[in-house]
């Protein structure tokens, strides 16, 4: 369908009383198709109402143009009727007279009887016949808004503009009105734009959700397509598998905006001390058992010990937060899934190459694949059983959750499925969900299983909603879990800080690895600032007490590895394995210059220096091959022919990845 409304490079600047100016909106580009329902969402003051007013013609853009069917919008008109937040009914006119005023002034040419029937029709449409002759003051808020909607629809606008139409209503009324509005819009094929700050409302009503960043200079941060089929019902929509991911996407975006605002206000300068270039660090982590080294380093004062006086741990609920923090430059370093440095470097994030380096593997193991308990009850205990079940029910869309495309979970899950002959993209669908959301989704049945780090597998088993079908031991014992990642320019600008950070974390890993400290470590990471969960769910290794009551012999959980021979040193072979797997599933291209990429991402020298200065030189490097559970052995010799040999894979591309020359970060 052709473009109906076009917002083209629109800016809006308000003059301030002090003489300056406030840039409300900057460079807004948006195309809306006929019959589409689009929502604007964002924090207060982000300019969403301003944008709506410009489409209405009530205010004029300072730059750029807004068009409706190719015609430039210069002034308000009845073809773009607005439903205002506070109803804007004329209190001295009755319901009927309010609607009639609009109809009579817009449809002057129609005979009187016809205009009257239009008014009556729309009064009936919103079910206000008994109240037609009452003044608005005698109506409830919901009824008033219905009058406003009826008035807007009565003049047959090409475009319906709604400015927080249900903002002032109670939840019950709002729900009813949302359904009515949806029905009317669908039946009359109305094109509508709605401003809202209600996330659920946006998901329920919209075809697309336009999310605006915070002002000044607000822009469109992201546009979400809502793929929930119509007609939608308020109660049924929540059961659609996309609902919660859309919802969490929006909430994530809004939270992110709030945080960016806070960080903008903070804007800390670099503090150099003790011969380190920067001692005030913001370190990102996701609350998982694997965050133990960070938590321990913080709680046991290991950062200070190595000169990093002002380390602040930033808890992110999902890996996306880490990606945005590193890409946006407000995290100095972060705990990352082992594939993330490569994924970012190879352009996984918004197709931009963002060189990120890793000088340390912080943890190994600690992952597992969990399936819905009902599969267990159906006798599905192994990968083969699972495959048979999947192939036996092709009509049902099966879904599994994972935390991030670049994480080991995704790669392991896909590897595991593919090894069993299941195509992870065709035979089922994989969905990115924040770790903490997994169990809820599994409980609700929106996903059939997941691959995630601890404590979530243990927790699913303990709560009886899922069972662990495979653990590290069965997949790849000792596989890398989380690594330390920093931007390359950061690493180049603060080399000594980087080494100090690795030293602190290495020492923390050593502390975690000591079985004598297990109880204390569990206690630390169960705290509010970290996992904020019951200690019973947290296990660093195989627990002594049984945690599930399945009659099948209990699967052994591999112990989290925090320190030891070959545990922490970044391994080129492993990074290469990630590179091949990311390419295998089409996440990133396989770089023709893979050796160069591998050398740049894998900062062994930083690790070696840190280990030497810490006096743990006995940490040996066990190089070589990776032995997978399906019997294949991966070596760093010929990755491309390895890729070609694989049966189940996407059409991967091989490309020369040209990164900018390593450069120093300009200290802000």
């Amino acid at each position: 369908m052709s473009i109906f409304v076009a917002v083209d490079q629109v800016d809006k600047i308000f003059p301030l009383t002090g003489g300056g100016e406030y840039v409300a909106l900057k460079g807004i580009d948006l195309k809306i198709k006929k019959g589409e329902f689009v929502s604007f969402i964002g924090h207060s003051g982000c300019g969403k109402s301003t944008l709506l007013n410009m489409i209405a013609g009530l205010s004029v853009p300072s730059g750029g143009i807004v068009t409706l069917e190719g015609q430039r919008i210069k002034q308000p008109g009845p073809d773009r009727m607005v439903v205002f937040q506070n109803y804007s009914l004329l209190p001295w006119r009755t319901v009927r007279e309010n609607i009639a005023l609009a109809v009579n002034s817009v449809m002057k040419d129609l005979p009187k009887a016809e205009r009257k029937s239009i008014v009556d029709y729309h009064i009936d449409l919103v079910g206000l016949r008994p109240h037609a002759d009452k003044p608005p003051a005698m109506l409830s808020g919901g009824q008033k808004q219905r009058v406003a909607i009826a008035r807007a629809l009565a003049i047959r606008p090409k475009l319906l503009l709604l400015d927080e139409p249900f903002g002032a209503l109670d939840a019950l009324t709002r729900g009813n009105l949302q359904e009515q509005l949806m029905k009317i819009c669908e039946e009359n094929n109305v094109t509508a734009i709605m401003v809202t700050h209600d996330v659920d409302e946006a998901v329920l009503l919209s075809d697309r959700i336009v999310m605006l960043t915070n002002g000044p200079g607000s822009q469109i941060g992201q546009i979400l397509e809502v793929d929930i089929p119509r007609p939608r019902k308020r109660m049924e929509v929540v059961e659609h598998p996309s609902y919660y991911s859309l919802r969490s996407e929006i909430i994530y975006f809004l939270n992110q905006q709030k945080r960016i605002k806070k960080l903008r206000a903070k804007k800390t300068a670099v503090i150099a001390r003790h011969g380190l270039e920067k001692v005030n660090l913001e370190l990102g982590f996701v609350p998982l058992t694997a965050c133990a080294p960070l938590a321990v380093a913080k709680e046991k004062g290991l950062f200070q010990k190595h000169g990093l006086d002002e380390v602040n741990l930033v808890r992110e609920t999902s890996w996306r937060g880490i990606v945005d923090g590193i890409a946006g430059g407000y995290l100095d370093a972060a705990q990352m899934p082992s594939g993330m440095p490569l994924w970012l470097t190879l352009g996984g994030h918004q197709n931009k190459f963002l060189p990120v380096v890793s000088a340390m593997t912080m943890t190994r193991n600690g992952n597992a694949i969990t399936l819905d308990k009902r599969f267990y009850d159906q006798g599905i205990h192994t990968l083969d059983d699972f495959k048979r079940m999947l192939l036996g029910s092709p009509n049902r869309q099966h879904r599994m959750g994972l935390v991030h495309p670049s994480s080991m979970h995704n790669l392991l899950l896909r590897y595991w499925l593919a090894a069993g002959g299941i195509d992870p993209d065709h035979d089922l669908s994989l969905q990115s969900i924040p770790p903490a959301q997994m169990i809820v989704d599994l409980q609700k049945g929106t996903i059939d299983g997941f691959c995630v780090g601890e404590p979530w597998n243990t927790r699913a088993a303990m709560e009886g909603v899922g069972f662990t079908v495979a653990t590290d031991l069965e997949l790849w014992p000792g596989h890398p879990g989380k690594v330390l990642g920093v931007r390359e320019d950061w690493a180049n600008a603060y080399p000594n800080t980087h080494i100090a950070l690795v030293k602190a974390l290495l020492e923390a890993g050593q502390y975690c690895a000591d079985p004598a400290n297990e109880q204390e470590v569990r206690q630390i990471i169960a705290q509010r600032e970290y996992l904020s969960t019951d200690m019973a769910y947290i296990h660093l290794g195989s627990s002594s007490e049984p945690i599930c009551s399945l009659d099948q012999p209990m699967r052994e959980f591999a112990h989290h590895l925090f320190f030891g021979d070959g545990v922490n040193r970044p391994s080129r072979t492993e990074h290469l394995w990630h590179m091949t797997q990311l390419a295998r599933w089409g996440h990133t291209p396989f770089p023709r210059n893979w050796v160069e990429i591998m050398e740049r991402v894998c900062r062994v020298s930083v690790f070696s220096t840190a280990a030497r200065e810490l006096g743990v030189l006995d940490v040996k490097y066990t190089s070589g091959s990776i032995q997978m559970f399906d019997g294949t052995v991966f070596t760093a010799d010929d990755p491309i022919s390895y890729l070609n040999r694989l049966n189940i894979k996407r059409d991967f591309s091989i490309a020369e990845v040209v990164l900018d020359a390593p450069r120093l970060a300009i200290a802000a």
Partner: protein
Amino acid sequence: MTVNTVRNAGANPLGLLSNFWRKQAPNIIPPVLGVLGFLTIWQICSSSGLTRLPGPLSVVTDERTRTLLMYPFYDLGGLDKGLFWQTLASLGRVAQGYSLAALVGISVGILVGTQPLVNKALDPLFQFLRMVAPLAWVPIALVALQQNQPAAIFVIFVTSVWPILINTAEGVRQIPDDYNNVAKVLQLSRKEYYLNILLPAALPYIFTGLRIAIGLAWLAIIAAEIVMSGIVGIGFFIWDAYQQNYVSEIILAVAYIGAVGLLLDRAMAYLQKVIAPTEQK
């Protein structure tokens, strides 16, 4: 049930009355007591010789005044008329001046309210003229218009026009943006806008102005008539009585003035209630 109630009420008007009394007594007794108390103190003060001002009873005891009190409708020609006619003459002047003030005040107020430029140009002038006391206008009016009658009407006009004008202008400025936006989106014509949006929206403000103005107009007429000798009117009546030292007549006239002022205000309030009821939120 309803029928029964009606029949009962009809059959027993006495019961209805006592019912009314029971309900309204708390509203009636205190003001009556207050007025009676005031009059008693006043009477005591004058009877005891504390003040030379006659007491309220003199209105009845003084023979001339009693005649005036009992026969408000007599008319012996010339200036010798009953108090009703005197009051009516004054009211007539007020009606003319006030109508003129309302007409000019509302229309100029709308102009000033809608055109910021005009407002900027005229506002200082309005604020300046507004401060001039009604009495100060009397000589100017007499010089300018040469005759008593038009001069009196002009004084009424010039006293009462400001609150109407200023309130109307404010009312127009205070029209919520929402209503104006509705008008803009619907592309109402100028006439439709004035009739359907501007006037109804500004009406409460206009009425506030009108209500203040009616009080001022009534005040002004007395002042104006006192100065302008030789016309029929309650103001001049007082002046005349003072000249001849009929103090109790003045007291009676003052009672008339107060009562009429009260009635005018109440009438305005009633009109406002009928035409522009305040919106219940």
